[in-house]
């Protein structure tokens, strides 16, 4: 019984959000010409979640699996939607948070919808930049990491490099890179690649150094060739470490991406945020923040799934 009640809480709270939006008076009057005048978009949006939670609750009655999943996520979802409730209350309903700097959810949603074309282009640009830089950094990082883990001589040269770049935040180089680079895009790619290169190199080197000697010896008794030793033994054996670097590298890459876009590259979501701020379009600014959050969350979730799949062989999973 208690579990059933907990399972319905996300539904209850999302309905509460809608009721508050409709019933509680706003902190000020809006003329129909006002760009941020409350619309029904927020109701549609929350209605979607309310329906989804209702459907989930119905499914939970019939399916044990749906029930356990809902029961596990319900407390977190409840708190998230309570925060949304509070946020709407502190902005649109009371104006407690400084106005007009903190817009309410409906205004943010409408700004996203209004600017969807340019936001989509910006998102595309950001992702292109992110993945170009990330891919280059990962490939170079794995190459130097394997080399440094493999040969003492390579380690002699690579280790000081990783120490140097490990202690200097990569964005420090941004002004120099932007001056020297032929194109802003190229410069930003270079920056992101550099930011990713360091953690991938460090973890890959560590991984290769941690492969038991007997693994290589066993492989060599079977006659594994030199390239085979690298691609079929060293890299898979150190893949748990490499994935650590891939994850760290992604979070650094996301940071570097936004800073590069805010500081020089004239495209992408980071640039969009700055641009909107310049025009005091706070709703659009928050909209871009929301899109960035969702995108980075999704990218990391995909990486997490790839990691769990690739490391299924590991004791205790990835």
């Amino acid at each position, binding site marked *: 019984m208690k579990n059933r009640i907990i399972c319905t809480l996300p539904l209850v709270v999302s309905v509460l959000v809608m009721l508050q939006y409709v019933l509680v008076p706003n902190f000020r009057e809006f003329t129909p010409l006002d760009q941020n005048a409350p619309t029904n978009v927020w109701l549609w949006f929350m209605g979607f979640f309310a329906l989804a939670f209702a459907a989930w609750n119905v499914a939970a009655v019939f399916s044990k699996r749906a029930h356990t999943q809902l029961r596990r996520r319900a407390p977190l979802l409840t708190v998230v939607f309570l925060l949304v409730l509070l946020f709407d209350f502190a902005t649109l309903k009371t104006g407690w948070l400084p106005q007009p700097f903190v817009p309410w959810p409906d205004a943010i949603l409408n700004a996203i919808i209004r600017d969807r074309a340019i936001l989509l282009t910006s998102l595309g640009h950001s992702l292109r930049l992110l993945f170009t830089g990330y891919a280059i950094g990962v490939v170079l990082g794995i190459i130097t990491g394997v080399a440094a883990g493999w040969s003492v001589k390579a380690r002699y040269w690579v280790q000081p490099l990783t120490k140097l770049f490990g202690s200097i935040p990569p964005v420090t180089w941004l002004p120099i890179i932007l001056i020297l680079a032929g194109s802003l895009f190229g410069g930003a790619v270079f920056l992101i690649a550099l930011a990713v290169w360091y953690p991938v190199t460090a973890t890959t080197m560590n991984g290769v150094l941690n492969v*038991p000697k*007997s*693994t290589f*010896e*066993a*492989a*060599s*008794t*079977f*006659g*594994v*060739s030199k390239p*085979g030793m690298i691609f*079929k*033994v060293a890299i*898979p*054996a150190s*893949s748990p470490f490499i994935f650590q670097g891939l994850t760290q590298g992604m979070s650094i890459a996301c940071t570097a991406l936004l800073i590069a876009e805010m500081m020089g590259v004239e495209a992408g979501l980071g640039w969009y945020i700055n641009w909107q701020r310049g025009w005091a379009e706070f709703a659009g600014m928050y909209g871009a923040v929301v899109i960035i959050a969702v995108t980075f969350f999704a990218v990391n979730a995909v990486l997490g799934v790839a990691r769990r799949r690739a490391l*299924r*062989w*590991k*004791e205790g999973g990835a």
Partner: protein
Amino acid sequence: MTGTIEIKHLNKTFDDEFCAIEDLSLTIAAGEFVSIVGTSGCGKSTLLRTIAGLEAPTGGEILCGGKPVHGTSPDRGLMFQEHALFPWLTVRKNVIFALKASGRYGANGGSVGALLETAGLAEFADAYPHQLSGGMRQRAALIRSLAVSPDVLLLDEPLGALDSFTRMVLQDEIIRLWQARGNTMVLITHDVDEAIYLSNRIIVMAPRPGRIAEIIDVPMGYPRNRGTSDFADLRKRLLKRLDFAAEVEQEYYL
């Protein structure tokens, strides 16, 4: 013959400090099962690794099947105390990896399933090494080594980490596989019973420098019975010999 091992005046020194092995000569016939016993640090692993080609001799030479040993070869399999299976591959893929790396997939690839089946590994074929018990892992490593049909299989305390029951089961398994394949076996063990139960000849090594102290023939047919008086006599003789070796070592320290 392809499985013969001729060790001629082998010397092996590490870091120019002391002799891990000094002037060791030994000939092992093709298809023979030889065990090596001796106190810890007397150079058994070093000898085996040199035969495998993982270490280069400092002096002397080793011929395998009449050809000098330079580096590793699929003709000389090596099995370690820690299984050394590739943890990222399932048991079946471990075997296939070995076959492909040695270029013998074409010849032996078809029999992988049957091989795993006869070794009692059929239901674990698609399990990862960490999902297996210690005994199953060693069994899988043994099968992986044998799958490439080496002329010589070198075993460095392969059963050392197992409980005595599992160990006896695997000893029978080793005998069965050896008799079916007729390859040469060189086994390092700390277990005197294991050496007597399995081998045609037992090499007793003495330390500092590593050398052969005695070679004991085991004139018994297979399968052997651990309870016979012949077995007990040999055990007594071997233990005495090993005690002596231990005394020598103590004198060295005093």
